């Protein structure tokens, strides 16, 4: 293994920069993400594809490197998103809980400050999010829902690109421990 500065895998948990955020950042950013999805599609319908709550959950889970924190942020953001949707409470909650947990688990092992790593992770977590949501809608609610692989992949890529830019901005709000 190459131990240069550009290596991706962390040899121990200590190597990862466990990020902390001020309380207001932890509250305002998820709320802003919810507001973004609630408010912006009204004026810019083409931005409806941006899953801002999902991106925020992934970011906090990745950089905090705490599985419990990740899943709790995912659960809260998901439930808030459920509250603003027509589906029963818990659909987005469960999906984002799992996304937060797994993202934090990956963050413990990989240096997530790399832009390319973030791009790839966000891409795969988006697909995971959509597939899991599709499974839950069909399995738990018995409702018909189409899953279009090509469209999902494209949206995953777009969200990943936006996510990398968003993560770069959010990096400026964190306090490195």
């Amino acid at each position, binding site marked *: 293994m190459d131990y240069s500065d550009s290596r991706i895998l962390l040899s121990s948990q200590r190597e990862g920069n466990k990020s902390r955020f001020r309380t207001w950042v932890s509250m305002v950013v998820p709320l802003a993400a919810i*507001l973004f999805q*609630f*408010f912006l599609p009204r004026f810019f319908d083409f931005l409806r594809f941006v899953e801002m*709550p999902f991106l925020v959950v992934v970011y906090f889970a990745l950089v905090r490197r705490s599985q*419990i924190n990740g899943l709790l942020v995912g659960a809260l953001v998901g439930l*808030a998103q459920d509250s*603003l949707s027509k589906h029963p409470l818990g659909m987005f909650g469960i999906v984002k809980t799992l996304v937060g*947990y797994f993202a934090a688990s990956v963050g413990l092992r990989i240096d997530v400050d790399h832009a390319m790593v973030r791009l790839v992770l966000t891409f795969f977590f988006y697909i995971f999010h959509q597939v899991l949501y599709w499974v839950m809608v069909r399995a738990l609610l018995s409702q018909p829902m189409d899953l279009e692989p090509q469209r999902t992949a494209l949206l995953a890529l777009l969200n990943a690109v936006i996510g990398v830019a968003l993560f770069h901005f959010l990096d400026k709000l964190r306090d490195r421990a």
Partner: protein
Amino acid sequence: MESLLNRYRNITVLLLVIAAQLILLAVQVKNNRDIPFVRAWTVTAVTPIASVVEWFRGGSSGMLHNYVFLRDADAENRRLREEVGKLKMDNIFLRNELSQADRARALQVFQSSTQSKTLAARTIGAGAGSGSKTIYVDRGSVEGVERGMAVVTPDGIVGKVIASYPTASEVLLVTDPDFAAGVVSQKNQARGTLKGQGNGPCKVDYVPIEEKVEVGEWFYTSGDDRIFPRGFPVGMVTAVHEAQPFKEIQVEPSGLQHGLEDMLIILSGVHQEIPDTPPGNQPVYIAPAPPDATKTTGAADASGAPAAASGATAPATEADRLRAHYKALGDAQNHVFGENLPGQKPPNFNLALPPAGAQPPVKQNGVQSPLKQNGAPPPVKQDGAPPALKQDGGHPPAKQNGAPPPAPQDGTAAPAKPAGTPPAKSPAVPPGGGGR
């Protein structure tokens, strides 16, 4: 034991959180009931912020629009709208609901005319989820909005309230696949169920194949669903396919055509008759402005031929022709439309004007009056006596498809017919100019 819990703490918390949400989900699905307080918390927390953001957005957008980018265009737009409004008030033939460009005003008119008790609402947000077909409006249970109420615009139905919170309500749009409403066709009274398809047009299901439904026909709410009162427009049929056992009918929902800015929530619905004719509030297609009169006159003078010869002065639409006719009537009687005080004598709309191509002296009430068009407006007596009209120009008058010649401007002599033309009697109402 303690070390075991510590070791598996993360996965334990994960399982607990997932299990809690699964139980929450199961309770809702099994009882077919929502957990209202959780949604109410979120909506109550989010909507005030959204309202504030909307307020700032509206203010800044309005300022940007009015004072930075389109200051002159906006002023001109307002002036033109006022002019259109005044003309409509004076002209009962041109009174048409579609000419109301101001959606809020149209909504107000509709609200006052409909028998149902309604509440005006404004969109403040979209439902979460990329495929969501729900919106949030700024009226909630405090104002009396309840789940299951219908949401309409003057153009047609919009959706129905699926959740009501203190400060806001969630509306399921007609395009949502979960939406359904009872509808009936206008011509043959074919009954069916309107369903959303996610995007674009809706479909009308359960219409038997023996029923006759035509493309272009309108569907109205039937009132069978006990949500939408009978008689509200739903949309126009865009496609009909024969299928077993029911027809496949595509309907373009009319309520969403003009955006989802303002709408009405029906608090107490009253059934109404389905009109015999399609709804009047069709999409408005504004024709290009009529050609400038000065340019037209100048062109006509320069060529020495009637302006109509080039076709430049021909009114674009029936409305343009009527407008030109009434403007000429107003000019002839020194009447400014829209600026007369109540109680004043209205202009004589039956006043005979010289038809295009025909020349005065005009005979009215048995009196022949020469028409004079030498650059000054023709003197008109408003006491019922025919005006003394004289035309001593050397050119034939501009012909505008039956409309009166344009009013002289800047001292330019209007084209007139050569002397010697036999007098003609003007019809009281030019073709298409008054009898509708």
